[in-house]
């Protein structure tokens, strides 16, 4: 029981994010109102440093540190990198919106950074305790961020729903964890997996705990039937918060699922496959169908998220290295797409106006053809149109599902994807074939946002045409 400073090396990215948050906290106290934007710069610098550190300490063999509570392996490295890059985009997009509404305050950045810290902890966790604490850190920051606009009653309502259902989800997860702990006698994944290997699946307590854990994961992902909070939260929360909440946390949730189900309970795969199957089919079906009926674009994107979660589950339930890699590819690219979609909504908003109806996108092509093109790329990608990355992701996942013999499942997924394509294409129609509303002003854009959005949109195209690099990375993580 001696502490070794070398333990700190693999968590340098986390330390960087925490330090940034601490610096922002202190600087924010003393800084003048006029120089508030310094904290924005500090945050970006901190994230870039964290990305660099992820690269520096990453790679190489799997390391267990902090007495097995934390792991640094290729999975953690890749997910951390993805989370940090997506979060960097989020903060760049969010700045104009916050500035216009007088909300460019330290708390947004601090809570945002803490939520990122939570995600980093989750994806690098190697014990139930660590994974749960990371999850709570993420969730608590997000609850507060959803209610961030204190004068918005919708925001408060959304935060309340999110909080209550999120707490319920955490409770389920914790209950499941307690059962598994009771049955295996350890909270560390390695020891749990070992105990499972010896006990086999005879122990009903284990399966019972697994059910609750899957429900908890379902809650955190927002999979049907645990999706009730998602549309309300997306609709009620301030757009930059939806941006933060709808992008990187999906990657973290994927990390959570892999850590719990594969690292911890891998030998129960036969049991959780069926559960995930139900969640996946329901999510893909309900998400795509209900999204068609939405007039509010944030709600529409919420249901679209639900359907994408279904696809991620499809990859997971395959239970093969190929399936995990496909799900990972899908998750990361989905986060990039979601960032782009909500980023465009922020660009369309201005002081006193939030782009929320689908009609607000009318004639975007005439107002700014470059942004229109980017949004079209995002929408086509989400719909799964080749050669964009969304198509690649769906293809990989379906391939993995077919490989394990679930052809009918792939067919169902494809059918619902085609149904879902309708509402994505409707958005594209509004952008290109409708006149803008008369009072719509030209889109103001500061340089950073335009560059970021261009990178974001073109990345979808580039990854779709040349998916090999990212895919190879994802596959190397799972040794496929």
């Amino acid at each position: 029981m001696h502490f070794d400073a070398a333990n700190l090396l693999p968590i340098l990215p986390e330390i960087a994010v925490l330090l940034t948050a601490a610096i922002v906290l202190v600087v924010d106290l003393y800084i003048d109102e006029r120089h508030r934007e310094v904290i924005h710069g500090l945050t970006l610098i901190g994230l870039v440093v964290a990305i660099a550190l992820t690269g520096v300490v990453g790679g190489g063999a799997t390391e267990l540190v902090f007495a097995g509570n934390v792991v640094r392996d290729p999975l953690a490295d890749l997910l951390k990198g993805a989370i940090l890059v997506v979060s960097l985009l989020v903060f760049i997009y969010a700045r104009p919106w916050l500035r216009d509404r007088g909300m460019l305050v330290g708390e947004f950045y601090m809570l945002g950074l803490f939520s990122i810290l939570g995600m980093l902890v989750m994806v690098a966790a190697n014990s139930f305790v660590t994974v749960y604490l990371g999850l709570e850190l993420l969730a608590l920051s997000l609850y507060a961020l959803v209610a961030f606009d204190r004068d918005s009653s919708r925001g408060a309502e959304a935060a309340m729903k999110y909080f209550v259902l999120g707490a319920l989800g955490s409770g389920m997860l914790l209950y499941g964890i307690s059962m598994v702990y009771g049955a295996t006698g350890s909270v560390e994944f390695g020891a749990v997996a070992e105990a499972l290997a010896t006990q086999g699946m005879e122990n009903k307590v284990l399966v019972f705990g697994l059910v609750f854990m899957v429900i908890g994961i379902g809650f955190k992902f927002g999979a049907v039937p645990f999706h009730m909070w998602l549309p309300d939260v997306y609709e009620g929360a301030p757009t930059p918060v939806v941006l933060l909440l709808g992008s990187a946390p999906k990657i973290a949730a994927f990390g959570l699922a892999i850590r719990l189900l594969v690292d911890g309970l891998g030998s129960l795969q036969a049991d959780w496959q069926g559960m995930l199957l139900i969640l996946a089919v329901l999510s893909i079906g309900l998400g795509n169908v209900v999204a068609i009926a939405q007039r509010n674009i944030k709600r529409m994107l919420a249901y679209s998220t639900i359907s994408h979660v279904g696809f991620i589950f499809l990859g997971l339930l395959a239970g093969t290295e190929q399936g995990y890699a496909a799900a990972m590819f899908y998750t990361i690219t989905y986060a990039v797409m979601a960032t782009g979609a909500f980023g465009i909504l922020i660009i369309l908003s201005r002081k006193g106006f939030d782009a929320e109806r689908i009609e607000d996108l009318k004639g975007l092509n005439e107002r700014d053809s470059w942004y229109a093109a980017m949004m079209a790329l995002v929408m086509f990608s989400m719909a799964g149109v080749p050669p964009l990355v969304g198509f690649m992701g769906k293809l990989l996942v379906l391939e993995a599902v077919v490989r394990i013999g679930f052809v009918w499942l792939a067919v169902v997924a494809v059918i619902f994807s085609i149904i879902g394509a309708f509402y994505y294409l409707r958005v594209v129609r509004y952008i290109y074939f409708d006149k803008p509303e008369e009072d719509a002003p030209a889109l103001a854009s500061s340089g950073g946002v335009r560059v970021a959005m261009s990178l974001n949109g073109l990345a979808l195209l580039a990854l779709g045409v040349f998916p090999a690099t990212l895919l190879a990375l994802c596959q190397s993580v799972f040794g496929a």
Partner: protein
Amino acid sequence: MGFEKFLFYVFAAITVLAAGMVVTRRNPVHAVLYLVLAFFSSAALWLLLEAEFLGLVLVLVYVGAVMVLFLFVLMMLDIDLATLRAGFIRYLPLGVVIAVVMAVQILLVVGPGNFGAEQFPTPAAAAADVSNIEEVGLLLYTDYVYPFELAAVILLVGIIAAIRLTLRRRPGTKYLDPTQQIQVRKGPDRVRLVSQVSTAGLREEQGARDVAQSQEDGSA
């Protein structure tokens, strides 16, 4: 052993009963007080498990601080009990049905047989001089230092979130800053001695002296 078992059943019964009261009492203050009782008897259960540190900390933190603040807020709120109860009664039958079905299902899947003493070997009792504070402390600051620090960060998030969501600086409130008040020094701040030269008084005095002078002159 017999006496310990008896104590366990007494405290366990109190805990369950109090927990039931928490959700069924109409008066929220009573509900919180039952919650206090539930915490207290759970602390006693922990003491029976020889986890005296956890038991006492439960009393100290939850009973002594958290619940006091809970009560503090509840007593200041004017909660409309009628509307709260209306919703409760309306959903009660449905809730009871679901709860019963779930409980039966859970019992069918994992019956008590899965949790019996034969499933889990009884851990050896620690020696009387083992201080579990020391044990907990050693573990927390070595093996579990990472989760421990994370818990600290979560608390920090709680503070930041609470301040962001509730602290509003209202303009125009009359507020005395005690730090400034107690910095008042005896000399220059409380009493200011002004050396005022009263010109009007001087003239009168001058006049009176002149009169006296002339009288003296006259008498001389």
